[in-house]
């Protein structure tokens, strides 16, 4: 609201503008307003973090906002052991990694045929991949559940891996085709002059040149698969096969979950995501933009 009041007069040269801005006390009011908003946004996560390392007695006595008297790790350790969290982390990591690799590979093959090969009916293939992108998973879930039982893949990580490889590569194909459509023809010509066939051209020219986009796709597929909830909830029913979100999600409302145990569980669900965010931050921002251009 304070923003609307900021009138900036426009002196002819740049320097006085900057000087005027520097003197303007309003700019700090705006900065502080934004900082308060940011703090409010992050407050739930901070509250979770301080209560995850607080003893139940400390919580009962001093409430959710007090700084813990001492660091109490038992809540996290007990929860970790109770749900065998290491196993869940591995399940999530393995699924996400395999989906990211296979999803990128499948997107490359599809986009090579559609974007560079321009096979007949490419528009219809693209419309198909666009629609596949839009489909809610509810419309696929029951037949997939039924079929996976028939072929013995129900309650197996591989069911989730196969399904998400296809679902993620629908997006990947769509995005990568638009990149490959504008692939420099000279590079392809040079490769064919050198006697490279289509297969070699793909791996020695097209893939290396498009590596930045492939990196974005890999990152997205990994994080999206890590965060998926609905299909893993349906397919991964036994304890040993659950992924992190499923293991945490189904425990909600469990009578063993008191305030500090719940925050402990939330914290160990948040930490891997924050880790990926820090690692992939640059790729992510680049990628969200790439998604807009599609």
């Amino acid at each position, binding site marked *: 609201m304070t923003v609307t009041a900021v009138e900036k007069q426009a002196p002819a040269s740049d320097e006085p503008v900057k000087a005027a801005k520097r003197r303007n006390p309003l700019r700090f009011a705006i900065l502080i307003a*934004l900082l308060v908003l940011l703090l409010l946004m992050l407050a739930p996560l901070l509250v979770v973090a301080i209560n995850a390392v607080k003893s139940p007695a400390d919580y009962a006595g001093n409430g959710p906002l007090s700084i813990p008297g001492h660091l109490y790790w038992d809540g996290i350790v007990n929860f970790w052991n109770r749900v065998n969290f290491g196993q869940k982390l591995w399940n999530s990591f393995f699924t996400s990694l395999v989906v990211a690799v296979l999803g990128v590979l499948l997107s490359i093959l599809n986009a090579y*045929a559609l974007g560079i*090969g321009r096979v007949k009916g490419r528009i219809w293939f693209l419309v198909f991949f666009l629609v596949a992108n839009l489909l809610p998973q509810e419309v696929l879930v029951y037949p997939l559940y039924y079929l996976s039982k028939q072929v013995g893949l129900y309650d197996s990580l591989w069911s989730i891996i196969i399904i998400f490889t296809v679902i993620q590569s629908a997006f990947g194909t769509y995005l990568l085709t638009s990149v490959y459509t504008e692939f420099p023809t000279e590079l392809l010509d040079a490769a064919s002059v050198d006697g490279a066939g289509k297969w070699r051209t793909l791996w020695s020219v097209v893939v290396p040149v498009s590596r930045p986009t492939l990196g974005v796709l890999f990152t997205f597929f990994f994080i999206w698969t890590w965060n998926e909830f609905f299909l893993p909830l349906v397919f991964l029913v036994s304890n040993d096969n659950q992924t992190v979100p499923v293991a945490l999600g189904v425990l909600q409302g469990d009578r063993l979950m008191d305030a500090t145990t719940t925050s402990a569980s939330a914290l160990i669900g948040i930490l891997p995501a924050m880790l990926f965010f820090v690692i992939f931050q640059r790729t992510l921002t680049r990628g969200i933009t790439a998604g807009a251009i599609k």
Partner: protein
Amino acid sequence: MAGKGTSRTGGYAVYLIPGVILSVAIIVVPLIMTVYTSFTKWNGVGDQKWIGFDNYTRLFEDTLFWSSFGHIFLLIIAMAVVPTLLGLVLAAVLFDYIAKTFNNRWASVFRSGFYIPQVIPVAVTGIVWGWILHPDYGALNKILDTIGLSGLAQNWLGDPNYALYSVMGVMIWFQLGYPIVMFMSGLQRVDPSLYEAADLDGASWWQRFRKITIYMIRPEFYVVLVTTTIAALKIFGQIFVLTRGGPSNSTLVPSYFAYKNFFEKAQVGYGSAISTVLTVIIIVLAFVFLRLQNRAEKAGA
């Protein structure tokens, strides 16, 4: 372009074979099966019994179905409309004010901070908020109690009068970062001389926001609006973790309604009809948006 080098015509179709086989198995066949099942009565085992449009007529008379779509309407406001408008203002303030009067680093720190709720798994954000809003040991009621406002404390997720509004609040928090990132990257395309010219004409910040910022990032505006609206139509994870559609169906949404019919009530035909209707709505909406966007782009050019 493809016709220029003869070596690049034909022979590419083989690269589509794995993609086509997998898409048929994982997307086309299940999609057809669900649409077919929506015309049958089936409990998941044994034979499917063809009953024509019965599931659909039942659907249109089912008050739960209509109320689940009513809830989606409110969730579109919380997940698409509010974050888009708020994100637009925040992105403009960060890009055009904070980045210029302080520096770019501040702007990107804010951008990352606002985006954090988006990277946390949906189920985990559900746990965070489920705990904060818990009536007995939740942080919000304890805080209200501490500052002497215990009269305001509610059973946020357990009271049918408040549950949906609580979920809406959580969804605004969850979604806000996405439009900010999108709009800030869109603003980088804007020619700085446009802003300088506006400055010279003595335009206020608000005038520049309305005349330049909003006009220049229309493409991102459409993308954000359509993707967040579709996300609202598909919402499942937060509802499952926060309320499971309750209390007394006050937060029921179509995807959770379909899930219940599939896996709790074993009414697979009815569940299939619900998800088929949801799918048709999403696809129609997406294509209407695409057309509008194309028209807007043509008008702009």
